[in-house]
């Protein structure tokens, strides 16, 4: 069942058409990877969906009805959660405080017991490996911080979650941890949009790959039936590209 679908989304910044006529569908329990070169419009797409910029044209259909996303709060209310690349965590606060930041239970006499219980529930649901929720976020590894950021986005019971480069700047083991997390989100029936540069990650967890090139759709592939070379060809716009030439050189020598 399709949760979120975009039709004809366009966005221009001055004279530059950042996005032209974009289509994208995300179903519940599906991981859609959005890939593209620098400047392909991935970040603009994320910003439109998370309510940072409004789209100039096109329709967004969410759970069967046409919606407009004017602000981050509106996106949140609809059930579209975004985890930005810089995570936006407060390092001096502990995991519980970060998870509930801005949404504390009982504002005038904080109910830390309820918040801690709920934090553990959330983290267990993601099978997250965080030893203690009472340590400041500064004490956590990059993968654990990503986990906390994703867990926080789950607090509002979203239907669709957008991950912006979740594995950039992570080590091998931590990347695996985050990929496990993405699979867990899919098992929990969420639609996941994952922006990524890393083809290995895309091949590992995504169901569909949507390729953007120069602000336009350049093909949607089922991961099982497409090779990395084909995706790269779609990203760069040619079968004869820097990556393939390099691979050929490697094969010849």
């Amino acid at each position, binding site marked *: 069942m399709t949760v979120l679908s975009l039709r004809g989304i366009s966005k221009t910044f001055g004279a530059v058409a950042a996005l032209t006529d974009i289509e994208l569908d995300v179903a519940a329990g599906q991981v859609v990877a959005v890939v593209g070169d620098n400047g392909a419009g991935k970040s603009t797409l994320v910003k439109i969906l998370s309510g940072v910029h409004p789209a100039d044209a096109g329709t967004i259909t969410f759970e069967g009805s046409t919606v407009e996303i004017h602000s*981050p*709060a509106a996106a949140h209310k609809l059930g579209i959660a975004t985890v*930005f690349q*810089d*995570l*936006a*965590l*407060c*390092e*001096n*606060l502990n995991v519980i*405080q970060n998870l509930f*930041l*801005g*949404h*504390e239970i009982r*504002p*005038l*006499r*904080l109910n830390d*017991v*309820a918040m*801690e*219980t709920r934090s*553990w529930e959330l983290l267990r649901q993601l099978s997250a*490996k*965080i*030893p*203690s*929720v*009472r*340590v*400041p*976020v*500064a*004490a*956590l590894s990059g993968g654990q911080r990503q986990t906390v950021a994703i867990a926080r986005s789950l607090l509002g019971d979203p239907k669709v979650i957008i991950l912006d480069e979740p594995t950039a700047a992570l080590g091998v083991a931590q990347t695996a941890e985050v990929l496990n997390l993405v699979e867990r989100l899919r098992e929990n029936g969420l639609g996941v949009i994952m922006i990524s540069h890393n083809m290995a990650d895309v091949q590992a967890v995504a169901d569909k790959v949507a390729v953007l090139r120069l602000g336009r759709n350049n093909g949607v592939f089922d991961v099982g039936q497409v090779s990395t070379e084909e995706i790269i060809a779609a990203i760069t716009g040619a079968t004869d590209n820097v990556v393939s030439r390099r691979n050929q050189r490697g094969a010849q020598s």
Partner: protein
Amino acid sequence: MSAVTSEPADRQDERLQHRGGLRGALADVVARARGGDLGVIPVVVGLVVIWTVLQVLNPIFLSSANLVNLTLESAAVGVIALGIVCVLLVGQIDLSVGSVSGLSGAVLAVLFVGEGLPVWLAILASVLMGAVVGWLYGQLFNRFGVPSFVITLAGLLAFLGLQLYVLGSKGSINLPFDSGLVNFAQLDFVPSWLSFAFAVIAAGWWFVSGYLHAEERRRAGLSARGTLTLVVRSVVLLAVLAFVVWYLGQTRGVGWMFVFFVALVLIMHYLLSRTKWGRSVYAVGGNVEAARRAGINVRAVYTSVFVLCSTFAAVGGILAAARLAAANQSSGGGDVNLNAIAAAVIGGTSLFGGRGTAFGALLGVIVIQSISSGLTLLNLDSSIRFVVTGAVLLLAVIVDSVSRRSRTSHGRA
């Protein structure tokens, strides 16, 4: 999974090192200090060193009479330092607290003595004046993005000028000695039985609230402090408080003004640690962008903090005027500014924002006043007092920076 279900929900990770009971609680404290999370340890150590040195130099220093004086002298600067703690927590600074406190004293004296208004109305007007100043700072900071350092530096000069203008050509106004306000600051002491009652209530309340909280955690399946730890903790507090009350009681006892200051500290402690507002203050100090994205109204937090700081400065100014029984041109001048900021920093409030507690203001101001009182007892010139206070402030900032580095390397933020 079945093997670990008996463990509390927050103790199930096998990597967690934990020792239960009283010894475990002590071990945790030691481990935290080693990791650079020093808390109040440097202040307490510093206080012991300072008191020892000053007592050796002048045996009167630790006498009951002098300590009673010390508590009374701390109240005014302490209240101002409490406001500074709030501003520092969001990573800003207010350099004008001295001027605002002086202006507040002047406004009080002019309205009360000059205009003959009832004292409560004069106090209310002074406090409101402080709040308006803070609100103004907040607006300037939010709308124009001027660094708080510059805004309040301008305020320092401007409000000093206003203070001189308000006082007029006489330059000094005496408050009548028989007024309730002066009595409150100079002569009102808590009766002995009531001070002991306060000590018992504080310790008892600490135990009861700790016990109820532990019970709630146990019911929710989380780990909780053992009852023995709670009892020991409260008994230690009771012993310390009872000793302080008894020792001060050898002469005049505990002043109401000091009780007022401690009450403000307790209220601020609650607001900072147990309310949504307090959480957002720490969040803004830690990472403004993250706080904004979490839906916190960052501007409102900044404004509220500036208002609080200036209001506390005004209250401190009233207490200082009452203590002196006069408001003059040098009220709030000289070292008041620096003492208040030094007290906050010495009490463990980080200049980098996001770290510190209300109790830090209490401890810090006692350190600052001890130095000042000790050096006065030694008949040393104020020139030396300034140098020593400056050196102690520098030391406190160094401790802050070093422990911050240690925290980073031990992953404690």
